[in-house]
């Protein structure tokens, strides 16, 4: 049984009990618990089912690396699948359900896959589902799709808010353990702006759990005073619950803050995505303990030794009364010693090393713990819970020597530095044979734009396992980072003195026992979440998948939501042994951001609902909306496709608008048309280059239709050009083309004809433009009065400045419909008033607004082209019979 102990638990507040629900059952926990700790305290060791074989699984780790304890959290608008119980803080009212089982966690039909495991080896899917061909689409895929996936997809709209925060600083320190704290302090002392992020709610990392002494006192004290000092400095930003998730080029990093996961519905945004721009990044990301590969190492109750220690020290939770520790290094002895001193039973420490360990082993023996050196575990007994382990010789093939009854197996295969962030931007690794780990190669860091490294690794993440080394390394990393970004030299560089037990060397153990039979190997799990075993990787190697990237994809090793945090190194080692090669020549798979899955919503930030996409609105937008507009997106704008009256269909509305405009009077909001002013002594010459026809010989007061081609000669835009005065032209572009054509003009002026005297301004948004179209067009405008619009003064393709109905305007006598038509430009802020005035005055002439579809019919009936309809980027003017608009004179 796993239970809450009467004392211990440095992170929980026993004065603040809380209740939560797991699979509908009410349970009790304490403030400060993780969900995994709360569940263990309620004897809920079984937390999920594996992906492929649906095997019962318990929690194995205590942090971000957890592969098994994945939960559905919350309900409806607050539902989230695949949340790690180990990184979820328990709060009052939390709702959790386990995943990937039917009908229940205890009894799962899918577990039959486990019985069929012999017939479902690696590559089974590739070999099986290829014949007959038609079966894939109609039978296999639908079935697999249905059974695949871990958590459920949310059905309701996310009820929470999310935000981005752009942060600028000189040094970003990732990781709030003692290394991160020291690095941040050293960098901050140099006066530069520092940001320190820690993914958990607590500072100090493992040091307080492992009993590290700093400056003569337990590490906790130094951690508290250091974080207090950093928090009070104006040049430092510290954020806990914030994971450094990804490092990108140019000193860009993403940090993922879980602001209110533990305090839902408190009005704060749930997640905040920090988009950090900095000059140097210190990764003090610590290390992850490796499991050991022995038979049935996935039975609930088999846990990482560090996790067993964490639950005990941090949450006062015992994973079981009797814990067998199995290890290849000294660190796991700490777990045995802590358990023993908490009054719990440790039947044995099984040390695979023939010689055993150092100082800590001596302490264990002194504490009366049985230590078996040169031994391993042949097999774990039990089904949904560990009941015993059988002892064997590590060097042998697994003959059982003795059975040791126990409830928990605390395993440790050594530690792997978290090199993910170092590697995101190309930092290189090297294999340290003595420590049996990949370590960052500090001579080959990720390179920034200046050709120098911009990431510095510190502490355990760099492979320094002893606390004194960690502090020294981290202090130096902080100083170096600050110095590289121009910080001043700090006067007081004395670093604190850290102490921990001396450790004997670890000995790599990639398979336990070393000569394990096929039967044992096919039950020795590497990747818990995706059900990849030692035998699967060996089979992949045998079938020719020699590249680590191929073997990964063939076996799915490391492809689950935990991205192989536990399985990676063991898998590589297994592959290298199967290929008779060494680990460094196998290499690692690629580490890509984010470090753990982050919410899609945090990436979207505010871009959802009303703010999903900006909608450009013309001055008359709301009028259209109030008058039945059926909207169509055009170049970021919304334009009315048609105005629906009463109960008519869209199609009926369009036809009504066409007939009314042809027979009476139509009004169109043409404000979205691009309008670009081109001015200067060389403007005419410039426009002759821009358009296929001549614009330099256009007379002031006149308009001309023009075509624009890309440098490949394909049509790219068209519109009416008006000459304003001797040096000034106004170019109309298509609605979607305004920004593009403005940029096109600027590009030519800035890069090719930089010596030409031409200025360009995009005035699209300054002007509202109203097209008054149809046989009655002149009548309504003359009724409003103010300027002479007769054919004599304002003939076709002419324009004039004047006044209509009291509005200063520019009137163009142009037509895109073949009807009598005027386009009136007024300052945008007066657009709506002008529009309303014309609509009112036009009532007696049968005025009706028309939309884009009517516009298309009107122009198509007259044979006018539309860029994007008759053109697709491969059409030249001659294809459309527009040779007349291609000037021959300019040759």
């Amino acid at each position, binding site marked *: 049984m796993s239970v809450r102990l009467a004392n211990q638990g440095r992170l929980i507040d026993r004065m603040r009990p809380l209740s939560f629900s797991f699979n509908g059952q009410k349970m009790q926990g304490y403030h400060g618990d993780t969900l995994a700790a709360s569940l263990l305290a309620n004897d809920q060791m079984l937390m999920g089912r594996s992906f492929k074989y649906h095997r019962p699984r318990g929690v194995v780790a205590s942090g971000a690396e957890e592969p098994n304890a994945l939960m559905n959290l919350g309900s409806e608008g607050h539902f989230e699948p695949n949340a790690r119980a180990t990184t979820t803080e328990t709060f009052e009212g939390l709702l959790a359900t386990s995943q990937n089982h039917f009908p229940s966690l205890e009894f799962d039909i899918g577990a039959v896959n486990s019985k069929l495991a012999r017939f479902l080896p690696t590559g089974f899917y590739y070999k099986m589902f290829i014949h007959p061909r038609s079966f894939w689409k109609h039978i296999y895929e639908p079935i697999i799709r249905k059974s695949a996936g871990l958590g459920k997809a949310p059905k309701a709209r996310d009820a929470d*808010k999310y*935000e*981005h*925060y*752009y*942060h*600028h600083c000189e040094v970003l320190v990732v990781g709030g353990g003692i290394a991160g704290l020291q690095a941040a302090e050293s960098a901050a002392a140099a006066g530069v*702006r520092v940001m320190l992020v820690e993914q958990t709610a607590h500072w100090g990392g493992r040091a307080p759990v492992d009993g590290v002494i700093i400056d003569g006192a337990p590490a906790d004290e130094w951690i508290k005073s250091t974080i207090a000092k950093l928090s009070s400095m104006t040049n430092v930003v510290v954020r806990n619950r914030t994971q450094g998730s990804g490092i990108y080029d140019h000193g860009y990093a993403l940090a993922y803050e879980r602001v209110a996961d533990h305090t839902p519905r408190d*009005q*704060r*945004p749930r997640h905040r995505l920090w*988009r950090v*721009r900095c000059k140097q990044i210190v990764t003090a990301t610590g290390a992850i303990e490796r499991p050991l590969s022995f038979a049935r190492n996935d039975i609930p109750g088999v846990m990482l030794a560090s996790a067993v220690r964490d639950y005990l020290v941090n949450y006062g939770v015992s994973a079981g009364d009797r814990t067998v520790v199995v290890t290849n290094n000294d660190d796991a002895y700490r777990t045995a010693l802590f358990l023993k001193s908490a009054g719990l039973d440790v039947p044995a420490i099984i040390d695979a090393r023939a010689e055993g360990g150092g100082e800590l082993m001596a302490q264990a023996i002194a504490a009366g713990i049985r230590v078996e050196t040169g031994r391993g575990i042949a097999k774990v007994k039990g089904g949904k819970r560990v009941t015993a382990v059988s002892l064997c010789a590590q060097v042998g093939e697994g003959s059982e020597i003795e059975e040791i009854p126990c409830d928990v197996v605390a395993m440790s295969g050594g530690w792997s530095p978290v090199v993910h962030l170092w590697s995101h931007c190309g930092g290189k690794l090297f294999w340290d044979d003595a420590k049996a780990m990949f370590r960052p190669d500090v001579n080959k860091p990720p390179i920034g734009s200046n050709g120098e490294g911009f990431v510095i690794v510190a502490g355990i993440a760099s492979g320094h396992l002893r606390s004194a080394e960690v502090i020294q390394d981290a202090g130096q990393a902080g100083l170096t980072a600050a110095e590289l970004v121009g910080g001043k030299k700090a006067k007081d560089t004395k670093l604190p003195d850290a102490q921990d037990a001396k450790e004997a060397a670890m000995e790599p153990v990639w398979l336990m026992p070393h000569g394990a039979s096929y039967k044992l190997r096919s039950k020795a799990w590497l990747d818990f979440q995706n059900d990849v075993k030692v035998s699967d990787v060996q089979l992949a190697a045998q079938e020719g998948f020699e590249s680590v990237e191929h073997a990964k994809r063939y076996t799915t090793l490391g492809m689950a939501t935990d991205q192989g945090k536990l399985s990676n190194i063991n898998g590589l080692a297994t592959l290298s042994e199967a290929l008779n090669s060494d680990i460094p020549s196998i290499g690692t798979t690629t580490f890509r951001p984010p470090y753990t899955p982050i919410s899609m919503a945090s990436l979207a*930030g*505010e*871009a959802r609902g*009303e*703010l999903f*996409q*900006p*909608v*450009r*609105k*013309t*001055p008359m937008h709301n009028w259209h909306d109030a008058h039945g507009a059926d909207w169509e997106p055009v170049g970021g*704008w919304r334009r009315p496709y048609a105005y629906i009256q009463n109960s008519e269909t869209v199609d009926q509305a369009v036809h009504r608008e066409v007939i009314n405009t042809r027979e009476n009077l139509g009004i169109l909001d043409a404000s979205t048309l691009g309008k670009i*002013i081109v*001015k*200067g*002594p060389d403007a005419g010459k410039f426009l002759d280059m821009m358009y296929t026809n001549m614009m330099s010989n256009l007379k002031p007061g006149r308009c001309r239709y023009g075509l624009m081609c890309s440098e490949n000669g394909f049509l790219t835009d068209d519109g009416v050009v008006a000459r304003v005065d001797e040096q000034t032209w106004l170019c109309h572009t298509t609605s979607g083309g305004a920004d593009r054509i403005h940029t096109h003009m600027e590009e030519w002026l800035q890069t090719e004809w930089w010596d030409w*005297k031409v*200025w*360009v*301004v995009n*005035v*699209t*948004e*300054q*002007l509202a433009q109203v097209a008054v179209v149809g046989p009655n067009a002149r009548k309504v405008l003359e009724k409003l009065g103010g300027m002479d619009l007769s054919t004599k003064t304002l003939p076709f393709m002419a324009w004039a400045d004047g006044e209509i109905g009291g509005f200063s305007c520019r009137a163009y006598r142009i037509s895109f419909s073949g009807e009598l038509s005027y386009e009136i430009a007024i*300052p*945008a*802020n*007066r657009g709506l008033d002008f529009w309303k005035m014309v609509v009112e005055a036009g009532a007696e002439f049968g005025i009706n607004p028309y939309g884009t579809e009517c516009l298309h019919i009107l122009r198509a009936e007259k044979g006018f082209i539309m860029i994007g309809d008759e053109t697709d980027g491969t059409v030249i003017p001659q294809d459309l019979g527009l040779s007349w608009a291609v000037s021959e004179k300019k040759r």
Partner: protein
Amino acid sequence: MSDSQPEGYVGLHQLRGLSMLTLRANLSATKIKSGIKKATGLDFPKHGMHTSNGAKSLGWMSPDELLIIVDSDECVQTIENLNKALVGQHILLEDMSDARAMFRLSGKNIREVLAKLVPFDTSHSGFAVGSLVRTRFAQVAGAAFMTSNDTVELMCFRSVQDYVFGLLQERIATWFRGLSIAVSLKKN
């Protein structure tokens, strides 16, 4: 923290009655600079800055673009003065008053509100009083003028003013560092 806590407030107001003129010209030419100074009575702004006398301001937009902001009733006069002072020079002066919308954020926490919207450095060192940055507000282009330690003015295109207003509202109405930032809205 309650909403009534005054130091947490950030005010959001849309500004009306301003005229904006865009001047394209070679801003490194002495004649141009002195002409502008003469026509507006304001110091010529440095790169990335704006100068102001309260009612009027000059904003450095690019090496060849200047933004002139005046009260609406001074617009015609200002255009006249500029045309006079820069006569014979190769310039393009356009009235862009209707093309844009202006918002003012006020309060102690404006830098933090801004940091949720714009990718540039909004700290005192990165965005000092007097700065003018052309940037983006989430998905749309805009410019930000730091007018005093607790006011910033934001400019965007008129067509997306509803989007920017919604954006500002949402960003102001969230918490930061335990401070409940409430919004006092005024859109006229």
